[in-house]
């Protein structure tokens, strides 16, 4: 085996440009695969971190009718918890409403939340400092899409629990910045006591955000989503959104492997006399198969080395400075959390895994044509007559 590696290395280097082309394509693929996965991991990690801070907390206890993806049922999905309210749960009540910035009407969700909550990053402590009738917090997406600024007062219209319309002025007291669009776009945050008064739904909530100390035991009419479950959903969304891009790198890998396959087929055909000579010198056919297979996988080993050497400064740069996301991606509600700058997460595991993937697939691809050497007649090979 060691011999095969030595010989393969010599043959590869001896073959010159063609080898380096293969190594080049494969090294490029290697870098793309690592980069892309690191980007996804980075996105995922950041999204997870931010979502925990801004939305999930350590889990959510949801009313049985609450489905975050169904805007039509949201107004009815609320209730009282029939156990004494735990201090480890922060109530959030969601109601639909209309806002009138500059005379236009915008449908929004108003979310009531406890001013004293410490679980989320939402700057709810600002509620207490304000003497506005109804102080509201909004995110920067909401602010920019409706051209709102701190201090703006605007008309809010909603129905109370009996379906009667009511209206009042709210005041924007702070605009917060978050990567989590689902606590930002199309919504305002107000103190939950005000919302209870406005709607007559005293003590009711759509869901509760759990703090770290909360331990769940089943409650009738409510269901619990642990932090892990919520994160898993998030990850699934991210993976779904990126599935199409991963086709790209499989395509790239495919092209690189095809190049190796092609080189192997050609090289076995062209080097028949050499194969015959190896056998005449006392190699078994399988040793020759091994030699050619190792030669093929050597491309991937060299590619991994070259890719790592070229990749390290690139990886370092992007993991330090991040990749800026265009505004059209981060400003809109893409239905998934995406940061302004994504910092790809390059891990040893990812790099090792990619090396394994590339080396293994290159080895298989070079073994397939090399296998035929075992069936060659050495006499024909020496004459260069194998078809």
């Amino acid at each position, binding site marked *: 085996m060691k011999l095969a590696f030595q010989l393969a290395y*010599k043959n590869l280097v*001896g073959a010159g440009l063609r080898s380096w082309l293969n190594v080049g394509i494969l090294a490029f693929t290697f870098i793309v695969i690592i980069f892309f996965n690191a980007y996804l991991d980075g996105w995922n990690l950041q999204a997870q971190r931010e979502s925990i801070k801004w939305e999930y907390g350590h889990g959510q206890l949801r009313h049985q009718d609450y489905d975050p993806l169904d805007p039509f049922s949201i107004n009815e999905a609320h209730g009282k918890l029939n156990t004494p309210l735990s201090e480890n749960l922060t109530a959030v009540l969601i109601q639909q409403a209309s806002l009138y910035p500059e005379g236009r009407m915008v449908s929004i969700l108003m979310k009531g939340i406890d001013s004293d909550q410490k679980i989320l990053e939402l700057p709810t402590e600002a509620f207490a400092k304000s003497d506005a009738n109804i102080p509201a917090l909004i995110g920067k997406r909401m602010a920019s899409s409706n051209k709102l600024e701190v201090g703006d007062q605007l008309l809010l219209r909603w129905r109370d629990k009996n379906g009667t319309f009511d209206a009042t002025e709210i005041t924007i007291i702070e605009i917060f910045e978050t990567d989590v669009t689902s606590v930002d776009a199309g919504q305002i945050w107000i103190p939950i006591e005000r919302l209870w008064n406005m709607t007559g739904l005293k003590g009711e909530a759509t869901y509760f955000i759990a703090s770290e100390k909360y331990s769940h035991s089943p409650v009738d009419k409510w269901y619990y989503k642990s932090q892990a479950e919520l994160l898993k959903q998030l990850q699934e969304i991210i993976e779904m959104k990126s599935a199409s891009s991963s086709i790209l790198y499989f395509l790239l890998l495919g092209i690189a492997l095809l190049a190796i396959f092609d080189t192997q087929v050609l090289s076995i055909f062209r080097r028949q006399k*050499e194969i015959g000579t190896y*056998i005449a*010198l*006392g*190699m078994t*056919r399988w040793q020759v198969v091994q030699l050619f297979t190792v030669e093929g996988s050597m491309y991937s080993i060299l590619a991994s080395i070259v890719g790592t050497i070229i990749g390290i400064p690139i990886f370092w740069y992007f993991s330090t400075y991040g990749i800026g996301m265009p505004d059209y991606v981060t400003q809109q509600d893409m239905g998934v959390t995406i940061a302004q700058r994504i910092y790809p997460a390059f891990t040893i595991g990812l790099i090792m895994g990619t090396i394994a993937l590339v080396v293994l697939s290159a080895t298989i691809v070079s073994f397939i044509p090399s296998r035929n050497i075992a069936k060659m007649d*050495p006499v024909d090979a020496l004459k260069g007559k194998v078809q």
Partner: protein
Amino acid sequence: MEPIIKIENVTKKFPEGEGEFVALKNINLEFQEGEFSGIVGPSGSGKTTLLNIIGSLDQPSSGNAWVMDKNVAELSHKESAQLRNLHLGFIFQVYNLLPVYTVFENVEFALLLQNKSKEERRKAVMQALEWVGLENIPNKKPSKLSGGEGQRVAIARAMVKEPKIVLADEPTANLDATNAHAIIQTMKKLNEELGTTFLFSTHDEKVMQYLNRIIHLKGGEVEKDEIITAQNPKS
């Protein structure tokens, strides 16, 4: 003394179109250790076919070929590789040097397969290069060699493991007269000093004058088996 090579009723047929072509017909031959003999005959008479069978690169269609007490027809791939690696040296008409290796590495190759230590290998390779007079250019690549030098590397490669038998298929066919003589003299010297058995296939008169024994092959049959009594070949 037991012959080192013993060909017993060997017939070799090749499929050809619907039928088959008989390349060797019921050959019977024996070679003693240390012989310096050659098979001569017109093109297509079966010289290469016979050498390939002896070299265990090919199998007889019927009959037996014993090489160092091993029946070539009965060897596994692994055993025949072993036989070639340890005991057989091949020299071809086209030198079949491995193009990416240096002269030294080409010669070293057989020893690598034998798992010899680096020091042992270096010594043996330099010795073999000395035998053929190439000790000064171990680092040249085959593409930079003249034809005569190339064939001498091939001889060094065949000889480096000090095999019992060297099979040389028209080794001088691509060489000019001077080089042909030089090469054959080198082999003759090795034959005398090391006792290696040489078996040539050739139609080269220059080669024939050095041989101790000439087997004439025609149409796949032995036409004449001629022992040459010692005489001084002209150089």
